[in-house]
């Protein structure tokens, strides 16, 4: 029956496309020259993976985390469903080592130290990149140098065709399990006669609302054995509603000087479905968030040789947690956490020679946090980051090096404050183009960096430990990349990297006073040896048919080297697959685009001891789509995309006892004016 339904839906979709064709709508393919799949800036000494807007269209993505799953070396800790938390760990380092920048300015969460990527939608994203090791562009805030890897999210700046003053973009996504996601973007160019010809003033407003019941079915297995019981259940208390709004102001006074200003507000309210506990699936905890920030970017190029930029931000975040059936005297547990960040960054770029660039950046930021917890420390942290970076480029060799200085001053309202930190972190990269062409590059990279303990690590009730030291990492990478185009019809890009990461003073939770009270300690040591292969290929077979292919493979051996006498010594650290990969293929024709994508992972372990009981099974999550954009009289573009996700209805978990969604459907309609 279900198969039959799928067939009907597919036929209906195809026929509607054909019908639309006959309706003599003019169709036009958009931006034909864009490369599908990931792209690696070939000459970089640091591995970079990029997914552009065009690629996002051909991948099954609702949230940003969906797109990141197609990058190699990434592990998304996905708690399942639209409302489940999603954090990103890169190359075996904890998720707190992954920085996230939104339009050039870092997002931060001083409470947990990690960014929940389910908060960011993929609408209006121009490019999404993952940079490992080092910021390629040296003219950026110092904080972008201060994480082991960086996810850079860049949104599309408004572009106005001819003298069109307004752009409208409306999208509606609907899908299984009550998914409703309307999206509206309005862009307006402000043009006044007195403004100089080369100036540009515009504003945009973006509203994205999403809701999902999230009550998807799953199989609950009561054991690892073949004959062990299975029951069919539905996820409950996993509803989510989020609202994401953003206003942007763009003022380009002249080609030398520009100012962008962004105001962002996010609200969410969700149920926490919890782990699927045998015989007890009931949960009623709720989580809600308010997050607002304003950020400003100003850039001025004094001359060909000297440029200056300033970035500033204020961030407010409120998290409210409610357990309405907590067994304390009040009969409930209700916590509110508020954190703020004040951020100011100044950077100067100096290009004494065409081949040699120097930059100096300084970031000052202050975080504080309150919570309605008894005896909460009410901590504050002042950070001063300064980086001196330099890059040299030539026909055969590119070289870059930077030195980051970090000073951290901690204070608390109640109790004892952690000691202040003072660190120097060097990084260097070399790329060689032996043929003197851009096709083939050999790259080498070294980076030393650390992550500060989060406020939860330091202060959360009895768990926190103010004696914590930063968790330190050393990263080494060597790689090759090749990029070539034949006859303008065939494009190939391939790369391979080998890396070795060392983590010491890893921050882990260990029960220190009793079993109910765990605390954070600098305990672990991890050595990670890995390799990654990435491939993109596209071939225009005939004028009306182009095939795009992308694939990635990653091997990681992340061994716990903490204590030779422990049962986990030499074992793979939790939630890190040895083998993982992704592949996507799509066919573009004049009438529609169809595609297939798969994300796959080998075995992982839910705990540090690599026993069969702790093993999580391999999985492959496959999806297909069909879509097209219709261009009506060059004024309106109507688009649709229909997706079938997890087509094999694979029942799998990324986090133990947090099942992922099985087969589901999604339809997206877009209208651009």
């Amino acid at each position, binding site marked *: 029956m279900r198969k039959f339904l799928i067939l009907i839906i597919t036929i209906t979709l195809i026929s509607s496309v054909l019908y639309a064709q006959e309706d003599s709508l003019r169709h036009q393919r958009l931006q034909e020259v864009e490369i599908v799949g990931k792209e690696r800036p070939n000459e970089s000494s640091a591995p970079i993976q990029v997914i552009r807007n065009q690629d996002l269209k051909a991948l099954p993505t609702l949230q940003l985390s969906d797109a990141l799953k197609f990058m190699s070396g990434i592990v998304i800790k996905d708690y399942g469903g639209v409302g489940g938390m999603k954090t990103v760990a890169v190359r075996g380092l904890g998720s707190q080592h992954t920085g996230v920048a939104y339009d050039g300015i870092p997002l931060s969460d001083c409470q947990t130290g990690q960014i929940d990527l389910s908060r960011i939608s993929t609408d209006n994203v121009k490019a999404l990149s993952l940079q490992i090791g080092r910021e390629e562009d040296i003219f950026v805030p110092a904080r972008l140098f201060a994480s082991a890897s960086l996810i850079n999210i860049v949104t599309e700046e408004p572009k106005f065709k001819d003298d069109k003053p307004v752009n409208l973009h409306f999208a509606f996504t609907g899908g299984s399990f009550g998914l409703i996601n309307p999206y509206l973007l309005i862009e307006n160019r402000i043009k006044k006669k007195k403004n100089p010809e080369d100036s540009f003033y515009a504003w945009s407003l973006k509203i994205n609302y999403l809701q999902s019941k999230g009550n998807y079915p799953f199989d609950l297995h009561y054991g690892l054995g073949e004959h062990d019981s299975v029951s069919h259940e539905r996820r409950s208390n996993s509803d989510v509603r989020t609202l994401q709004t953003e206003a942007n102001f763009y003022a380009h006074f002249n080609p030398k000087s520009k100012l962008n200003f962004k105001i962002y507000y996010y609200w969410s309210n969700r149920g926490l479905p919890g782990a699927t506990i045998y*015989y*007890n699936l009931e949960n009623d905890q709720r989580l809600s968030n308010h997050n607002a920030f304003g950020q400003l970017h100003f850039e001025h190029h004094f001359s060909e040789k000297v440029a200056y930029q300033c970035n500033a931000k204020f961030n407010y975040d409120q998290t409210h947690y409610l357990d309405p*059936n*907590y067994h304390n005297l009040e009969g409930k547990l209700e916590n509110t956490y508020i954190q703020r960040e004040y951020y100011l960054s100044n950077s100067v770029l100096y290009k004494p020679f065409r081949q040699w660039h120097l930059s100096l950046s300084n970031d000052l930021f202050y975080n504080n946090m309150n919570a309605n917890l008894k005896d909460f420390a009410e901590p504050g942290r002042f950070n001063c980051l300064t980086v001196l970076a330099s890059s040299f480029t030539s026909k055969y060799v590119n070289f870059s090096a930077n030195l980051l200085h970090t000073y951290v001053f901690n204070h608390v309202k109640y109790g004892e404050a952690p000691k202040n930190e003072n660190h120097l972190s060097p990084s260097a990269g070399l790329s060689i183009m032996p043929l003197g062409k851009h096709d083939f590059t050999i790259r080498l990279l070294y980076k030393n960096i650390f992550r500060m303990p989060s406020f939860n690590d330091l202060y959360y009730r009895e768990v926190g430990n103010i004696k914590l030291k930063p968790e330190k990492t050393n990263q080494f990478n060597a790689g090759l990349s090749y990029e070539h185009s034949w006859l303008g019809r065939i494009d190939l890009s391939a790369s391979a990297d080998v890396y070795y990461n060392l983590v010491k003073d890893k921050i882990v939770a260990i029960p220190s*006073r*009793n079993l109910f009270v765990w605390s954070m300690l600098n305990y672990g040591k991890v050595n990670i040896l890995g390799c990654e292969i990435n491939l993109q290929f596209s071939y225009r077979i005939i004028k009306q048919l182009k095939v795009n292919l992308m694939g990635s493979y990653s091997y990681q051996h992340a061994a716990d080297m903490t204590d030779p006498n422990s049962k*986990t010594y030499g074992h793979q650290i939790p939630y890190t697959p040895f083998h993982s990969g992704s592949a996507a293929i799509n066919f573009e024709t004049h009438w529609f685009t169809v595609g297939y994508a798969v994300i796959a992972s080998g075995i992982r372990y839910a705990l540090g001891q690599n026993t069969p*009981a702790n093993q999580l099974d391999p999985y492959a999550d496959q999806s297909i789509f069909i879509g097209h954009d219709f261009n009506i009289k060059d004024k309106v573009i109507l688009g649709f995309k229909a997706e079938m996700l997890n087509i094999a209805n694979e029942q799998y978990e990324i986090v133990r006892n947090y099942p992922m969604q099985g087969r589901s459907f999604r339809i997206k309609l877009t209208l651009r004016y």
Partner: protein
Amino acid sequence: MKKSLFLLVLLAVSFTACKKKPVTPDNTTIDLNGLYILNEGVWEHNNSSISYYNLDNNTCTADIFTSVNNRGLGDTGNDLQRYGSKLYCVVNTSENVQVMDLYTAKVVGTVPLVGKSPRRICFDGPKAYVSCFDGTVVRIDTASLVVEATVAVGPNPEGVCITNGKLYVANTGGYNAPNYGTTVSVIDLAAFSVVKNISVIENPNRLFLAPNQQDIYLISNGNYYDISPRLQKISTATDEVVRTFDFDITNMAFYGNKAYLYSYNYSTEAYTIQVMDLSSEMIVNEQFISDNTSLNTPYGIAVNPRNGDVYVTDAHNYTVNGDVYCFGQDGKKKFSFEVGVNPSGMVFLN
């Protein structure tokens, strides 16, 4: 879900005729000389398990509950006790009591206690009593396995024991930390109502009926700050604390007229295992282990009533498989074996 569980229970009941099977190499068969070990597992991992160690041939069945019942025990088994020909396991996060045949570990019934967070169990006549973190003690009929009555006690009750028609329950108040509970409630079993609250040191946790069946020993965990964990003796004649012992303690077990106590300090990760004489109430051996055996994290203690061997479990870092060490009365290690994660309770079959 409910239906499938019901089916499982039905199946289990129909298969169980409570007969002792002959000893075969089949690991589903339980020999009479052995012990069950309850492994709590890690919270939210559904990996609580029961191991069985056969003392005749020194073999361990890592997860006998799953291999016999084709389903896992669930999340955070907190108490394992035998009563009559049954084995009872209180599973805290799965919120139920699994009732098994003592000799086969085959489930004969499940008592769901959803929303109550059940902790520990004790018995009297045809009834079982379970303390629940929602501030109650429930009475379960052991024949019908139906919850018959509920009585409200103090906050987050944990340890229970019964003597002379009275049930004693330790109100930890752990969910109100740092304002821990300071009472042990006394329930008259005939009326099934609280008749007295005994004042005790903060955070009362474990209760043990002394071998004389008259005294009750209570371990209060203290507040993990300025109040240390202490052993107290309650007289059931007066229902008062009659003595407080001036040493740190975590857990204890009895054999004859002796108590084997251990204390573990979570901050310093140091432990001691001592022997106390119950008549003189003096520590007669400050260092029970007499060879060079060393544990990481003692997590449970029990004595084999047949020969007085002392079993101590080691939970290591609480996320790896634990070990059980068997010591003779002389404090020398006899053997050890690996079990599941966080082994705590032990039940001997002899």
